[in-house]
């Protein structure tokens, strides 16, 4: 009589009775579902910050681009390259050419202070001095409003992210550079990359404004193909006239995202873990209530021949169902509240703000649902064991 199908039908039946009885104990059920939804919302919400930050840096890198810095430099901030270095790098084998001109963009990188729109507090905003090649080594660059830079002029164009986060960065606005104020003439997008967090100007005028002579801090080189990277790197690192390090652009940005992403994820998991601890007690309470309210019903079913293991499985299944409901609710809330929300944070490698959008990815939603399921199973386990161990005759006497 007790085959696996029969057992499964017992489990489904008892679970169904439990779920159908939810309206009778809606208060405790709602508290548990909301508790689990809260955990998932916070977990997914916080992790979406890390995911958004990581994505902003990931899309900044292209597999066929290389970044050249001074040897020993971890970021552009602490790098320095002379005009002669730039020329040698540009002429190296493997660099793609466009009408004979190498697609190698020497760039200058400085930081200016600007108040944020949200708080009015000063923040470090990256400012990049570029030449024409800068637009050729980046994908998805587009002027969204205003116009492009005119070379040789004290003017800037601003990334869409920076424009949204910092005061004065709109077309017609002014940016303080040293003792002067330069007009904003355009707003650009760059496929969600970190370039959108930056202010761009002509490298030559920025060199003059900051007394940098004819020096740069990095060269962004577009290679003929990703496979040419090793040859390009070997050529530069073995050249006795150069003292540089060469990294793939993907790796460079991935490295930059590591510290912040790890910090955000650690904080996210810690907060979620603390909340999950509370939510487990919520689930425990709900399932103990469920089992207690249905004590005589469960005892009756067992008297009729339903098995103890089917009772355990069904109580856990009910708890799991409630938890998954909470997980889906939390995931939906996180998606609605956080996905695409724009903010900025400090990139500790470059000591400057990176603007990015929170990313509630399918992976994060899955992670949230898994957390909810674990909370549900843990919250259902002890009530299920209690339900199965209670004496049938004692429970039947219970009024």
């Amino acid at each position, binding site marked *: *009589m*007790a085959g696996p199908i029969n057992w499964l039908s017992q489990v489904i039946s008892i679970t169904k009775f439990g779920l159908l009885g939810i309206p009778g104990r809606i208060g405790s059920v709602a508290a548990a579902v909301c508790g689990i939804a809260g955990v998932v919302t916070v977990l997914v919400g916080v992790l979406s910050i890390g995911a958004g930050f990581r994505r902003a840096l990931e899309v900044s890198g292209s597999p066929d681009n290389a970044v050249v810095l001074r040897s020993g430099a971890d970021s552009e901030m602490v790098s320095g390259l002379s005009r002669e270095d730039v020329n040698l790098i540009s002429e190296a084998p493997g660099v793609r050419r466009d009408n004979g001109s190498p697609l190698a963009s020497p760039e200058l990188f400085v930081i200016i202070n600007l108040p944020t729109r949200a708080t009015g507090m000063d923040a470090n905003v990256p400012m990049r001095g570029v030449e024409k090649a800068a637009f050729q080594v980046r994908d998805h660059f587009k002027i969204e409003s205003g116009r492009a830079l005119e070379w040789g002029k004290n003017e800037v164009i601003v990334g869409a992210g920076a424009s949204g986060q910092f005061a004065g960065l709109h077309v017609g606005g002014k940016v303080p550079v040293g003792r002067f104020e330069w007009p904003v003439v355009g707003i650009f997008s760059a496929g969600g990359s970190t370039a959108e967090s930056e202010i761009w100007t002509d490298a030559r005028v920025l060199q003059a404004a900051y007394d940098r002579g004819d020096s740069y801090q990095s060269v962004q080189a577009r290679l003929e193909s990703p496979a040419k990277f090793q040859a390009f790197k070997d050529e530069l690192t073995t050249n006795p006239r150069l003292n540089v390090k060469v990294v793939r652009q993907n790796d460079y940005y991935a490295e930059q995202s590591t510290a912040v992403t790890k910090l955000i994820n650690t904080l996210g998991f810690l907060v979620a873990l603390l909340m999950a601890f509370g939510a487990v007690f919520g689930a425990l309470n709900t399932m103990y209530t469920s089992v207690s309210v249905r004590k005589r019903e469960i005892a009756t079913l067992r008297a009729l*021949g*339903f098995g*103890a293991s089917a009772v355990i499985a069904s109580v856990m299944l009910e708890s799991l169902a409630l938890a998954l409901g909470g997980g889906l609710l939390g995931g939906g809330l996180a998606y609605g509240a956080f996905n695409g929300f724009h903010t900025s944070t400090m990139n500790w490698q470059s000591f400057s703000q990176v603007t990015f959008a929170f990313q509630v990815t399918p992976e994060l939603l899955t992670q949230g649902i898994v957390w909810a399921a674990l909370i549900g199973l843990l919250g259902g386990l002890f009530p299920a064991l209690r339900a199965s161990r209670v004496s*049938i005759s004692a429970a039947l006497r219970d009024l």
Partner: protein
Amino acid sequence: MSNANSEILVDVDGVEMVFRRGAEEIHVLKDLHLKVPKGEFLALMGPSGSGKSTLLNLIGGLDRPTRGKVRIGGEPLEGLSDRRLADWRARHIGFVFQLYNLVPVLSAERNVELPLLLTHLTKAQRQKHVAAALNMVGLSQRARHFPRTLSGGEQQRVGIARAIVTDPTLLLCDEPTGDLDRKAGDEILDLLQALNREQGKTIIMVTHDPHASARASRTVYLNKGQLASEPLQ
């Protein structure tokens, strides 16, 4: 079920039941012997705490005796694991409870169907059995009603339909009229009597009501865990 000892369906042999409350031992049943022939309608009477329900639970395989043996149709229950005992109950015992113990979220017919979920019957076969059981207790018209919309007497009739739907060997009724008024109680007793006389069902009914026990073919009395042929005065 074994054919041995076929005249005697229930054989309670030297059963003792001891409950512990802290260091205290409470002897609920003491060296109790009871034989119930197949087809008998037996009433078990006695004051509260005399051990009536405990004895009924032992016969129904819901509890295990501290000492002694319970055999139903010659089959000893003590050797069965909990899982096998549950299977055995599903096949051989029909329970009728004082407070009906219906699942509130299920209609009358779904409540009656419950024991059939433990069988390999198809849905159509189950529906046929349910319809027959509800017809037998006179509730065909109320099949889709939920317990809260039924009177106490109707709920108990659903409880009886649930108890007989698998055609069990033995019906165990624990104060089946204890929560009903006299009229509804009489209807339930009529039904139990009919099941015994017309269908040959063996019934053991715990009651404290002499009016109810008068419907049984035999009455035994329990007092302080021991059987007596006459009630204590």
